[in-house]
């Protein structure tokens, strides 16, 4: 049986900790992804380099790619992300999309793209305490951060914690 490798798709907002926390939570539940695909906006693009280095420390042998999306244009951003998800699937990856970081418009675009292009998992890292918004995942009490599976072709059809 061939086990497909994971590609993790993440939007990027102004808090790099949120992006890293999502990757942490994913690693703990599903194992390390082989590729992390970041979608920053023009304003969060300067964070990509730092995030990529942090992800390499966290996940070891991981390839980090990125593509800037228009944060205020849901349709356009969604088409870009959708294209990437399809491409990753074509390359033989199982694709997980985490919609936690970034502005709401970016999360909506990522969710729409994940549904339309049949991503394997759609995820949301539910922080139960706002104090931890700028804190990385292992420094948050475990019951205060819950990785929720919102859906996805390979995931649960209903939301589950």
């Amino acid at each position, binding site marked *: 049986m061939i086990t497909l490798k994971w590609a993790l798709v993440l939007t990027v907002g102004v808090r*790099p900790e949120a992006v890293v926390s999502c990757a942490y939570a994913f690693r703990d539940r599903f194992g390390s992804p082989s590729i992390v695909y970041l979608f920053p906006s023009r304003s969060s693009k300067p964070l990509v380099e*730092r995030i990529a280095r*942090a992800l390499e420390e966290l996940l070891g042998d991981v390839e980090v790619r990125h593509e800037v999306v228009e944060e205020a244009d849901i349709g356009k951003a969604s088409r870009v992300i959708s294209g990437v998800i399809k491409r990753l699937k074509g390359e033989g990856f199982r694709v997980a999309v985490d919609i936690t970081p970034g502005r709401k418009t970016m999360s909506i675009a990522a969710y729409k793209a994940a549904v339309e292009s049949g991503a394997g998992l759609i995820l949301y890292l539910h922080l139960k305490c706002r104090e931890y918004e700028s804190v*990385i995942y*292992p420094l948050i*009490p475990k019951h205060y951060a819950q990785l929720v599976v919102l859906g996805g072709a390979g995931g649960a059809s209903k939301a589950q914690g």
Partner: protein
Amino acid sequence: MPVKLRVEELTVLANTIADQVLEFSLPQYRAELVRISYVDGRVLSLTADDELGALESILKSMGCLRPPVSRHLFWDALTSAGVLQPPNMDELLNLMGRATRFDPSDPRQKVLAVDTNVLYNCTLTLAAGMTRSRPPITVSGCILYEIAVKVQKETDREEAKWTRQLAGIRGSRKLGDELAYTWCLERRRGLAALREYERVKLTYPFISTPRRKCRGDAEVARDYSRLMARGVNTVLVTHDRQMYSTARAHDLPVILLKPPKRKLDGIPLTCIPEVIYHLSVNFGLVRVSGEKGWAIVRSAWRGASDEEAVKGILLVESSPEVEGEVLSEVEVARSVLRELA
């Protein structure tokens, strides 16, 4: 192998050893303190008062006049950790708000002057989590001198003697001996107060009066009165009734923070690292355990430096089944944070 952790890294430890339940105990005296739910922080059982009361009684019956173990130290740790609050904390928060806003009817600069116990109780760190107001804070040089004197005293022979005896009778002779040869309570608490002083300097606009050799409430009040005389609108904040009276006698406006009620329904999970830290300061070491393992957390050990203590660095010895995981998770978290910085 023991590992040195910063206070905030203790969450990694708690996450590794506990799933549903977290317990705090003093293995040196075989005393259970409190068991909480690690899901929501609810107290499942609280035995600290009974256990520590019994230890105090044993020490007193043996002729110890100043027991190094007491119920107060437990409740003080919870206060310093921000779990318990003065019932009139709102008064301080209101004052902080007023001191930050410009008031055309009194345009003088408003400053909050703190008493020693405000540093010991970490009141300003607690307040910083409850309001966005960051008024200027002043700490008297007399207070810093007072703490510096306490910190200079490394060991206390009487305290060491009773600690060793009590541990020999009730708990672990080995841990008792170890505690007897490390820093005494006054030094550990003084260093914790200096850690709070550093946090206050980072969080608030800060003024200090010149450091000089002086002691006592009257000297501190006089120091702050001098600021008043220079046109600075100074309000003293204290937890001490005596200091309150002294300040009033010096015509110094003052807020007296009342002692918190000694009642514990839960420990917010956000406070767990600080609770572990302050229990380890007040008792020398504390054991934290969960379903998956345990750890002994020390605030003082042979070779520990003042710098480490002021930074809040603790020595953590975990049970073999979690030791590797704690170490690797902490190392990864540190590298990740380094890259994000």
